[in-house]
């Protein structure tokens, strides 16, 4: 045997010893980014069919009122206009809601926000559709609008929906909070508020529909959850599900709104138009349309009260959060649940009383957005921790060390933390990396106009859907004659690389190289419904589906390889596209030989994997129990520099450590730490979608500020901690959402440290800092 072959076998054996972990933990290139980098036509607007009509949506011009009449005659006179759609054109049920049936697809009787869709104009080109949309005359009988959720909660307030203005009241009650406060030496109270944040995926929501010859309708669009769009469209069109084929095109960012109700709206409107005109219809959304229509992060007002002993032990925490959902509830009824489960921070506190209210107003609606209630909750709780520390004359880090969750401690809902609680490691590592203790000392000595400060914030994050739905997934794997592996699932890729991560898991198990994998475009008729692609669940839940499918194929591959190698099935090792017998490693067969043999002998290399997470048990009345199967943990330190005279500040450095259980692909995990943090820094420092009289004042990227490359901290240190969780494949936990949560409180606390000023509302603009200092 030549040296070369020997070396190769040695390498293969080393890899094989790692078994299923073959490629787990390696920063391999993702399998789906080459086309993107080459600029190939892969996004929805790049692949429109010929003869497509363009639809322009017409929104309500008033925030609250009855529709008296809709007159489209002038628009229809335009020779380029092919149709105008209104609620009268909906063949099925005119409803496009996710949870509570409170939102029509096209406004019929009533409008409740300026984001409501009243009509859609279909024309040969978008310019003509846009121009004609201005010729549609809609008469309204206005009703008194409400824009303040506190007003909306008052008795006698005008009703936005007949069932009342509070869409959901969520409680978490543990122990006796009154007694807890009585036993406390120190009590702090505060009110914390947050704003509407827009997700701003760089590609707005888009969809087109094509009427097929067999009577089916095909919908292609930018979305997170094709099966949700499928069922919404089927309902609106009164079609069986089997006639609605929804394909997710390559999607240019999503962050939540593309899982909520907007993709259903677009798919349904395109489909109605396509069936009506017999031509493909593309619902084009401008940036303005998108920012007005899709769901935003809920603004919140949180009254928080915390009681502690003189030596800093937390005894009681009471939270009352008003979350404004705008005109419709969408997924807000679940957002408020997650917010309440996390409202007291990542601490053990014996007495808790949380009341969360999801409240309607006549602003445009809020709903799904990365973080899902956690950013609001942790801004309040982590801000208050620093106020408490100040009152206790204690370092905020020390106060956290005393109270934070560790193995053996219990959350607000009484859920027990086991060995998978990596919060202490996260805190330890982020404190070390940031030189926190040294900086606190140094910065205490500062005078002059420029001041530095450090702030810390920590979190726990209940993984995946938990109380938000049944957490199941299907993953299809199919090896073709050429040895290419097709991975398909109802879960979607929209930027994170998580679907490529599923391929990485499958390739580890099957023993073939990752670059053999191709990702099927998710298709509602081809792939089994796998729940929504939300809650960062692709790796933690979807990964188990990929693992299941890969293990099934691996068994078959082993059988085939055993025949070729003339050995026992149990002796077969397949690694890096090569199979050999552990008892006679000199003889080897390649991947393609195995695949060929499988095809010849009728062994199917096509299978479906399945996984369903264990049910989470909790009490609906008290909120107590174990709503999540596992948790992600994280800690961040922000280092800021503040100009005292102007309140202008910058985040100079940011350090973050996350316990992600097991990083399947560390580079992609860091991609989430970077991206989530910067989106969180936008939320913390500059982003705010402003409504005035129910109208969005800044639905554009000129005045809705998202961070540019010149706004990011000069220094950013991402740290991965791995304390394997209970359910994710190889211990993986979710990572996409949690990083967005910490910048708000970390920056706020750093400014407090630098200046002594407490800014309790997001975004922390320079003006707010200046106001705190010049009261």
């Amino acid at each position, binding site marked *: 045997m030549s040296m070369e072959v020997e070396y190769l076998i040695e390498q293969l054996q080393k890899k094989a010893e790692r078994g299923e972990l073959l490629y787990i933990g390696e*920063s391999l*290139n*993702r399998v789906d*980014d*080459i*086309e*993107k*980098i*080459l*600029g*190939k*036509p892969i*996004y929805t*607007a*790049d692949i429109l069919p010929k003869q497509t009509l363009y639809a322009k949506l017409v929104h309500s011009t008033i925030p609250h009122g009855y529709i008296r009449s809709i007159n489209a005659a002038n628009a229809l006179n335009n020779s380029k206009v092919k149709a105008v759609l209104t609620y009268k054109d909906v063949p099925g049920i005119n409803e496009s809601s996710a949870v509570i049936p409170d939102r029509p697809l096209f406004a019929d009787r009533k409008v409740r926000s300026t984001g409501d869709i009243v009509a859609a104009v279909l024309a040969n080109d978008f*310019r003509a559709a846009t121009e004609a949309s201005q010729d549609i005359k809609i008469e309204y009988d206005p009703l008194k609008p409400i824009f303040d959720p506190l007003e909306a909660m008052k008795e006698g307030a005008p009703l936005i929906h007949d069932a009342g203005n509070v869409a959901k009241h969520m409680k978490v009650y543990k122990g006796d909070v009154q007694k807890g406060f009585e036993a406390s030496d120190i009590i702090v109270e505060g009110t914390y508020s947050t704003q509407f944040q827009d*997700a*701003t*995926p*760089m*590609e*707005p929501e888009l969809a087109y529909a094509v009427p097929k010859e067999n009577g089916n309708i095909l919908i292609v669009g930018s979305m997170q959850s094709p099966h949700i769009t499928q069922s919404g469209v089927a309902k609106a069109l009164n079609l069986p599900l089997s006639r609605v084929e929804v394909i997710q095109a*390559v*999607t*240019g*960012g*999503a*962050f939540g709104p593309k899982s909520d109700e907007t993709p259903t709206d677009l798919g349904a409107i395109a489909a109605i138009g396509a069936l009506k005109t017999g031509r493909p219809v593309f619902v084009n959304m*401008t*940036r303005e349309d998108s920012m007005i229509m899709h769901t935003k992060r809920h603004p919140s007002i949180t009254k928080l009260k915390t009681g502690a002993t003189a030596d800093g032990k937390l005894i009681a925490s009471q939270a009352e959060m008003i979350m404004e959902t705008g005109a419709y509830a969408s997924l807000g009824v679940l957002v408020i649940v997650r917010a309440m489960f996390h409202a007291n921070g990542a601490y053990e506190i014996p007495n808790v009383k949380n009341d969360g209210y999801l409240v309607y107003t006549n602003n445009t609606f809020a709903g799904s957005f990365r973080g899902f209630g956690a950013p609001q909750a942790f801004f309040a709780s982590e801000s208050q921790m620093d106020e408490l520390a100040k009152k206790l004359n204690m370092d905020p880090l020390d106060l956290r060390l005393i109270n934070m969750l560790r193995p053996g401690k219990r959350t607000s809902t009484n859920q027990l933390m086991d060995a998978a609680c990596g919060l202490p490691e996260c805190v330890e590592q982020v404190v070390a990396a940031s030189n926190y203790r040294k900086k606190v000392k140094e910065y205490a000595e500062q005078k002059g106009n420029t001041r530095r400060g450090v702030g810390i914030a920590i979190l726990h994050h209940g993984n995946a859907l938990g109380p938000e739905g049944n957490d199941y997934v299907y993953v299809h794997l199919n090896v073709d004659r050429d040895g290419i592996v097709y991975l398909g699932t109802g879960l979607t890729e*929209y*930027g*994170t*690389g998580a679907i490529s991560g599923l391929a990485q898991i499958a390739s580890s198990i099957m023993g073939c190289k990752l670059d053999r994998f191709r990702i099927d475009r998710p298709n509602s008729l081809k792939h089994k419904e796998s729940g929504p692609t939300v809650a960062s669940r692709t790796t933690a839940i979807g990964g188990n589906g990929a693992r299941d499918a890969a293990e099934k194929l691996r068994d078959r591959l082993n059988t085939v390889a055993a025949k070729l190698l003339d050995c026992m099935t149990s002796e077969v090792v397949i690694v890096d596209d090569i199979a050999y017998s552990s008892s006679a490693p000199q003889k080897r067969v390649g991947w393609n030989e195995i695949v060929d043999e499988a095809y010849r002998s009728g062994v199917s290399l096509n299978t479906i994997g399945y996984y369903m997470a264990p049910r989470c048990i909790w009490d609906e009345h008290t909120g107590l129990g174990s709503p999540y199967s596992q948790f992600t943990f994280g800690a961040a330190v922000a280092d800021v520099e503040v100009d005292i005279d102007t309140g202008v500040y910058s985040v100079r450095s940011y350090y973050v450590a996350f316990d992600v259980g097991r990083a399947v692909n560390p*580079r*992609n995990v*860091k*991609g989430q730490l*970077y*991206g*989530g*943090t*910067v*989106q969180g820094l936008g939320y913390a420092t500059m982003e705010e979608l402003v409504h005035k009289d129910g109208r969005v004042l800044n639905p*554009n*990227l*000129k005045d809705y500020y*998202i*961070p*540019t*490359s*010149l706004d*990011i901290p*000069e220094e*950013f240190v991402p740290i991965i901690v791995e304390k394997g969780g209970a359910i994710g494949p190889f211990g993986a936990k979710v990572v996409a959402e949690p990083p967005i949560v910490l910048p708000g409180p970390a920056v706020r606390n750093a400014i407090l440290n630098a200046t002594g000023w407490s800014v309790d509302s997001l975004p922390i603009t320079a003006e707010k800092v200046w106001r705190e200092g010049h009261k």
Partner: protein
Amino acid sequence: MKDILLEFKVNGQPKKVYVDPNDRLLDVLRDYLDIKSPKEGCGTGDCGLCTVTLDGKPVLSCLTFAFQARGKEVTTVEGLGNGKELSPMQQALRDAGAAQCGFCTPAMEIMVTDLLKRVDNPTDSQIKEQISGTLCRCTGYYPIVEAVKKIKEEER
């Protein structure tokens, strides 16, 4: 009314198209010439995703009327490599995980190419400055900066 004859070069190829006075360069590239790498992220000149080079300088094709390109040379990502394999610059982006959703990637590539044409070993702040008119919502920009630094290291 497509009554203006636009003659220009796109990725080295001479093109002749009749355009409407209101057509933007972005519309001509995407809708007439099937060049889809420039994206419309806002249509108001605020996101940078429609960036192409016009006579060698990166500009926003959504803020340029088509007729303004007459006699000029336009380059898009389709013209940067052979269209099949990744160039070293593109490979560096891939290796750094710089393309997540990928929607800003073509514009970033135009900006990065322009920078490397002018500056040999760009610093972090030069790179950030160069891409500061192009918004990315996925990566937080760090992997892009890292990729650009790698490109130069590889060429050295």
